[in-house]
């Protein structure tokens, strides 16, 4: 990983698809936490809606044997992110602790990163973001509101990390496990999502990532995603064959 440091954690997420009920609580929590604008139904119809965390549906088979698999998809926070490579102005890059961030104030809006991301996990502000009526009162003061014309994406609730780190520093102690978790993980009702330091061999995420059910999306592209999925089948018996 570029810019990795030994004393730094490497934040990662594990999503257990066996436990996931596709309830979209993570999606809503993310929208609210990160001031993601809802562009309204007409813009959503045109494919302009922004979802840092998106519940992706993968239809399989033909009727009547058809079914749909669901997969919550945040930014994969690749260790070798194709988006960061192509940004001409270094407005997106990977922090030493492995978070792929976006510098909104530097982004020129060329959308090269959005086309280079094989997961389609980056979004563009086609218009000035708007929060109709009272919803503008509910904006999170910790997260900047993006202007029109820049790219935005999941930051693993980076502001939560900053807050937790500041608190730990003021109390002169290291960051405790579980002190920093993103909003999606926190809100998951069936507790299907786990978050922590992938470099710490004893952490829950590190242990789960070694599970035989563990897989990463489009692993063959060599992007080394830090969002790890646990395959369906252990409990639901989907993989009967």
């Amino acid at each position, binding site marked *: 990983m570029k810019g990795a440091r030994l004393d730094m954690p490497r934040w990662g997420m594990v999503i257990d698809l066996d436990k996931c009920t596709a309830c979209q609580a993570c999606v809503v929590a993310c929208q609210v936490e990160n001031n993601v604008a809802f562009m309204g139904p007409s*813009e959503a119809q*045109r*494919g*302009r*809606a922004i979802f840092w965390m*998106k519940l*992706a549906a993968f239809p399989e088979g033909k009727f009547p044997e058809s079914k749909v698999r669901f997969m919550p*998809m945040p930014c994969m926070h690749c260790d070798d992110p*194709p988006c960061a*490579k*192509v*940004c*001409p*102005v*270094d*407005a997106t890059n990977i922090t030493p602790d492995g978070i792929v961030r976006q510098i909104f104030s*530097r*982004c*020129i*809006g*060329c*959308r*090269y990163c*959005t*086309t*280079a991301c*094989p*997961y*389609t996990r980056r*979004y*563009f*502000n*086609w*218009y*000035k973001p708007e929060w109709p009526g009272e919803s503008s009162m509910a904006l999170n003061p910790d997260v900047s509101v993006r*202007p*029109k*014309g*820049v*790219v935005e994406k999941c930051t693993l609730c980076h502001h939560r990390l900053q807050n937790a780190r500041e608190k730990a520093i003021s109390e002169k102690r290291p960051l405790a496990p579980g002190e920093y978790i993103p909003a999606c993980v926190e809100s998951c009702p069936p507790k299907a999502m786990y978050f922590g330091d992938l470099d710490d061999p004893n952490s829950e995420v590190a242990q789960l990532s070694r599970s035989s059910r563990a897989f990463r*999306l*489009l692993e063959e*592209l060599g*992007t080394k995603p830090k969002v790890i999925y646990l395959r369906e089948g252990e409990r639901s018996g989907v993989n009967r064959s």
Partner: protein
Amino acid sequence: MSTVADVVSESFPVNDEALFRPIETTTARFHITVVVLLTFTCFMLGAYARQLWLGLGVTGLNTPVYWGIYITNFVFFIGISHAGTLISAILRICHAEWRRSITRAAEVITVMVLFFGAGSVVVDLGHPERALNILFHPNFRSPLLWDVCSVTMYLTASVLYLYLPLIPDLALLRDRGRKRTWLYGVLALGWTGTPRQKHLLERAIAVMAIVVIPIAVTVHTVVSWVFAMTVQPMWHSTIFGPYFVVGAIFSGIAALLIALAIIRHVYHLEEYLKQIHFRHLGQLLLVMALLWFYFTFAEHLTVFYGAEPEEMHILFSKLTGPFAFGFWAMVACCFLIPVPILAVPRWRTVKGTVWASAFIVVGMWLERYNIVVPSLSQPRVLPSRMVYFPSLTELLITLGFFSTFILFYVLFTKFFPIVSVWEVQEGREKSLEEVCERVSGYIPLPMTEADNYRNLRRPQSIR
């Protein structure tokens, strides 16, 4: 017995007044043309102002299809730019004597169209006012930054390469003293045509002709790399560099042919831009059409035979899916229609080559579109549910780019000779002798006529 030089001076018109006429006399037709072109420019400015004010939401772009016809135009315009510098440089280096009256028209296309190529990217930016971040925070791993570097270099080299052969003509205009004498005086840099000046100019042009060729090849290769360096299906292809360069030269020659035909018709330069120019360029165009087909076929067959699901989605969206019309129109415009026209000598006339070129220009624009949009519509995960169609804003800006490019080109012909006067004159004075010498240099047995000619000239050149 009359010498060859005598025959030459008898058979050619000696005064080149026709070449100065476009600069010194202006017709009503010119004014109408400018007004029409300016109207489209104004529409473009209005549309762009609205886009700046409201955001890129006024385009037809959406979440997987992040790039549309602006980027198509970018690739297309940069491609057209290969008309000039590359063709003119290659012809110069090869001592192709028929180049003399077409090089200027070609080089101007390059310089003018590059502004619109670069402009297409700026129009596509969400925050154009931050474009200079490219200098403040450059990321040299980004192919887009490579593009900025190579296009800048290409523009600089092309401007120089246009300007150098323009100097003697500027001096001619200055010495005529009819219009804008001060402007030509400043730009001519004190050219008087002394042997030393001529020698330096020839050297400089020769050096630039060699320098611009690798730069031109680099530019379009790097444009292709913007796509090919990503891991996206049907973009991530090693063939893209040469494929784009071939397509660029192809569309460039077509654009040049159209420009030459219009210049010839409007300014009555039939004596300078003859059938033979169109025939030769038509032959070049035919070669490029075949090369283009070869690359296109190789690219698509490889994808089809390999049958990777991700690439197959995109391939079939082009062959039979929502992009089928554009794809087959491209095949027709770039290959099926122009190749017969260009291959049959009877049809390779001025009219024939211009018709073929018109189809090719449209076809090559479609080719760029077929590369940019289908791949973006079918990403590996979360494919698009709707078909991208450009909005009115995008169409107006595109139209405006084309009309403003033509406007700049038309204005150039009103300020500077569009056919290089001194090069045509030089051709009349020197090229026949040079060609005879060159040919007699490699013909194994003595050639009676040329030998006679050389024997006549030799005592003079010693003196």
